[in-house]
């Protein structure tokens, strides 16, 4: 479980995160949504330890994130753009990652098989298409059976067949009780993969509840429509900075 | 008959001393135990043969023509008090001894062997150790000093005198000696028509060779290495120096060869290797420098403005930090036909001679001349740029100091 408490991150004058408090629970799948510059990436990077928060706490399974790195054994991360050293072979990349992860005995190679990456182990990174690199990123994220998965735009740039393969895999891991945090601009994907919605705007959490709840309140059957309706509603009102389930309650009042 | 016999003996005695000269044996175990005793007994022309042993006899004075021969290298010990051998006669030969521990006195110039007013003195095959002066000769003619080894382990130049010191002499030959640790290795003052050849002077406190007012002398095939101040040649005319090696004379004001007020001389076929300044010259005129090798020196030649009418030709300048330095702008010397490894010109007509002149005075040399500390920036990019700028717009370097016919290849100088 990831627990974020009153997280503030400033870049100079800009407040990227302005008091974020949120919990992510195992077995649930979160869609992290927000407009560009809303703080999504900063939030993910804070949890991954790439961004050092100005104040606030992040705890992953009882281990504080600040100045620690062991907790990241539990996290698989699929970046939005996977860029790798040009002349590195896929096989070398996997070998290096396994080495960094201290060569665990149990490896999840389902995606490697599904994407047929085994046939490409000797290919160098600069010879790969963007889609293939994305497959490599996905395979790496799942390889070490992490209980927590961060997937940043996982389906972007993938061909339709691969998108389905990846979605099946995500679905499977969700059912296996992993904690998933997914960002995507494709609402239909999130509709399939996520159970919860965390909506960020201007560094604050504006909505945090299940997708079903959101659909109920808005009376829409599609996540995309429901989101659009909610965002329009938000624009006409002021919310207290605090997120959490209360957001849903307030939203009820608005609508 | 008797008269005839007498005549024969007389003739033989007059023509060659060997016939009637006798040999006196000095032996600690024999009847004549001291050299002094033997000299008293000896007649002119006798030979004194000294057997192995240590002879502490204070100051031994040789006042008649004698041949002193050490057999099995007997030791003459001066007990740090006396001049060991003092020679006042002509036709004296001293050889085969080990001469140690003379007295130290800068007033009396005590020596291992001192000689005054002699003719045809021969000092050969001796070893000198810890003598104040090694060999000190004055007012003599036709001296031969060869195959001696002189060494001192003094710490400063004030604790020791010169190795081979000649004053007011003529027609001396100094050959194949080895001098180390003395103040000056070989010292000449008012010594004329003499030859110094095949000697090695190294690690002496001051100069390997130091001579003044010594005209018409020749120096061949000597080695001067790692001496405190190199070699100094001063106030002299008509000197010839050939095939000598000047090596590793390092330090501030240390010169491979210092020339001061020299004229009508020749410095040819010498090698100057790794000296701080290979040749420093002031007041030098009409002297020829040819077929020398200047290699890996700090400065090849440092020429003061007081020099004129000297010629430098067919020399090889290689790997020197600075080939040529001068404090003047007006140059009255000729430096044509040398090889300079820094020359970057071309040879279109393929005659082996560069088509554009070479200017051996580097711009930065002039800077270092004024500010010695600036040598620390040598070979930096900044200095490289300054040097290029100077080559395009000459401002500091003397315009007419140039080699009009620089050789493209090193001259073949076998030494």
């Amino acid at each position, binding site marked *: 479980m990831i627990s974020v408490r009153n997280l503030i991150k400033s870049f100079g004058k800009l407040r990227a995160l302005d008091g974020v408090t949120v919990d992510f629970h195992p077995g649930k799948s979160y869609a992290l949504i927000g407009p560009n510059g809303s703080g999504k990436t900063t939030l993910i*990077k804070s949890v*991954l*330890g*790439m*961004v*050092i928060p100005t104040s606030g706490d992040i705890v992953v399974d009882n281990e504080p994130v600040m100045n620690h790195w*062991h*907790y*990241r054994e539990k*996290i698989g*991360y699929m*970046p939005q*753009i*996977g*860029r*790798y*050293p*040009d*002349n*590195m072979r896929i096989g*070398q*990349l996997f070998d*290096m*990652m396994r*080495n*960094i*992860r201290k060569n665990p005995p149990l490896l999840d190679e389902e995606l490697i098989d599904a994407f047929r990456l085994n046939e490409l182990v000797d290919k160098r990174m600069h010879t790969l298409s963007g889609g293939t690199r994305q497959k490599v*990123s996905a395979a*790496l994220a799942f390889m070490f059976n992490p209980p927590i998965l*961060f997937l940043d735009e996982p389906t972007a740039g993938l061909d339709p067949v691969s998108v389905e393969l990846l979605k099946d895999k995500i679905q499977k891991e969700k059912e296996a009780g992993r904690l998933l945090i997914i960002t995507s601009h494709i609402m239909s994907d999130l509709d399939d993969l996520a159970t919860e919605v965390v909506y960020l705007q201007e560094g604050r959490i504006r909505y945090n509840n299940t997708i079903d709840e959101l659909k109920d309140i808005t009376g829409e059957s599609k996540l995309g429509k429901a989101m659009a309706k909610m965002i329009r509603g938000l624009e006409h009102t002021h919310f207290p900075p605090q997120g959490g389930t209360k957001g849903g309650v307030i939203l009820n009042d608005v609508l | 008959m008797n008269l005839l016999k007498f005549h024969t003996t007389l003739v033989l005695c007059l023509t060659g001393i060997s016939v009637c000269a006798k040999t006196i044996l000095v032996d600690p175990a024999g009847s004549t135990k001291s050299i002094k005793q033997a000299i008293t007994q000896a007649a002119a022309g006798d030979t004194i043969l000294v057997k192995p042993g240590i002879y502490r006899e204070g100051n031994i004075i040789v006042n008649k023509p004698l041949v002193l021969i050490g057999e099995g290298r007997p030791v003459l010990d001066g007990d740090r008090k006396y001049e060991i051998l003092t020679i006042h006669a002509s036709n004296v030969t001293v050889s085969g001894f080990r001469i140690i521990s003379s007295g130290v006195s800068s007033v009396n110039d005590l020596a291992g062997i001192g000689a005054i007013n002699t003719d045809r003195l021969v000092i050969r095959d001796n070893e000198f150790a810890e003598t104040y002066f090694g060999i000190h000769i004055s007012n003599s003619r036709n001296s031969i000093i060869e195959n001696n080894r002189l060494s001192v382990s003094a710490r400063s130049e004030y604790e020791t005198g010169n190795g081979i010191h000649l004053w007011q002499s003529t027609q001396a030959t100094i050959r194949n000696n080895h001098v180390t640790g003395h103040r000056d290795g070989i010292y000449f003052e008012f010594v004329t028509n003499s030859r110094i050849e095949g000697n090695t002077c190294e690690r002496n406190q001051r100069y390997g060779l130091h001579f003044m007012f010594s005209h018409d002398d020749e120096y061949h095939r000597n080695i001067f290495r790692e001496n405190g101040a190199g070699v100094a040649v001063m106030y002299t005319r008509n000197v010839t120096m050939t095939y000598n090696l000047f090596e590793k004379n*390092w*330090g*501030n*004001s*240390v010169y491979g060869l210092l020339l001061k007020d020299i004229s009508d001389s020749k410095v040819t076929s010498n090698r100057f290797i*790794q*000296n*701080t300044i290979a040749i420093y010259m002031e007041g030098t005129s009409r002297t020829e420098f040819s077929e020398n090798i200047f290699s890996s*020196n*700090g*400065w090849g030649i440092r020429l003061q403005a007081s020099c004129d009418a000297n010629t430098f030709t067919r020399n090889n300048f290689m*790997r*020197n*930090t*600075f080939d040529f330095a001068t404090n003047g702008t007006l140059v009255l010397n000729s430096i044509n036909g040398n090889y300079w*490894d820094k020359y970057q010109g071309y040879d279109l007509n393929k005659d082996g001679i560069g088509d554009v002149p070479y200017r051996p005075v580097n711009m930065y040399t002039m800077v270092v001349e*004024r*500010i010695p*500390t600036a*040598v*620390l*920036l*040598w*070979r*930096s*990019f*900044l*200095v*490289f*740029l300054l040097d290029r700028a100077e080559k395009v717009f000459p401002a500091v370097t003397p315009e007419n100091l140039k080699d009009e016919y620089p050789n493209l290849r090193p001259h073949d100088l076998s030494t």
Partner: protein
Amino acid sequence: MTRVIKYVFYDILRTRFILLYTLFLLVSTIAMFQLDTDTGKVILSLMNIVLMVVPLVSIVFSTIHFFNSYEFIELLLAQPVNRKIIFLGEYFAVAFSLCFAFVAGVGLPMVLYGADASGFTLLYSGIMLTLVFVSLAFLSSVLTRDKAKAIGIALLFWFYFSLIYDGLLMWIIYTFMDYPLEKITLALVSLNPVDLARILMLLQLDISALMGYTGAFYKEFFGSNLGLIFSSLVLLVWIVIPVWGALRIFTKKDL
């Protein structure tokens, strides 16, 4: 860390730039040996390359490489591993590959054509300068997030140490020429790694001239191994301090 170093090292060795750099050094060195029979003159010409080109290439290439590897470094940081390990791994990989290129380009022909002590000093200086300027490059890279700005800082470092510093030094020497400044100038020289490497070479090529320098202190310094030991130590400081500073900044930096 070794696995990271190994694969990043392999990767850099195959980049076109490093191949060209190696080739350039190889061709120039061989050409110099072919054109000139005097090894001393070859060493002199190579010295200019070592003092000018090697630092420039090292600092610019390392800075560009750092920014090109940004996403990859991010991915590595999402793994359970200390930031320091990643940073130092990158440093060593870049430094080793540039040293390798230099040794292959200059050292190999030098050994083939026969090198003396000054040749080995040259190789040593080149390797030390490579390490110093990679170190400075990593410092410039963490000082800013902007690639162009970082390259600007890197070029400024190079320009400063290659030219500006010596200009200032010359000015000081000229202005205070009547004062005994020997120790001070020597100290000032050691504040510049390029000058130090140059002094190391001067100790080989121009020892006769340096010995003509006033003062017993200098004679002792230049005449013994003291000069070599001193300059090596200071160069080592020049390698360690910038990379240490960069590491400190990097561990607290937001990516």
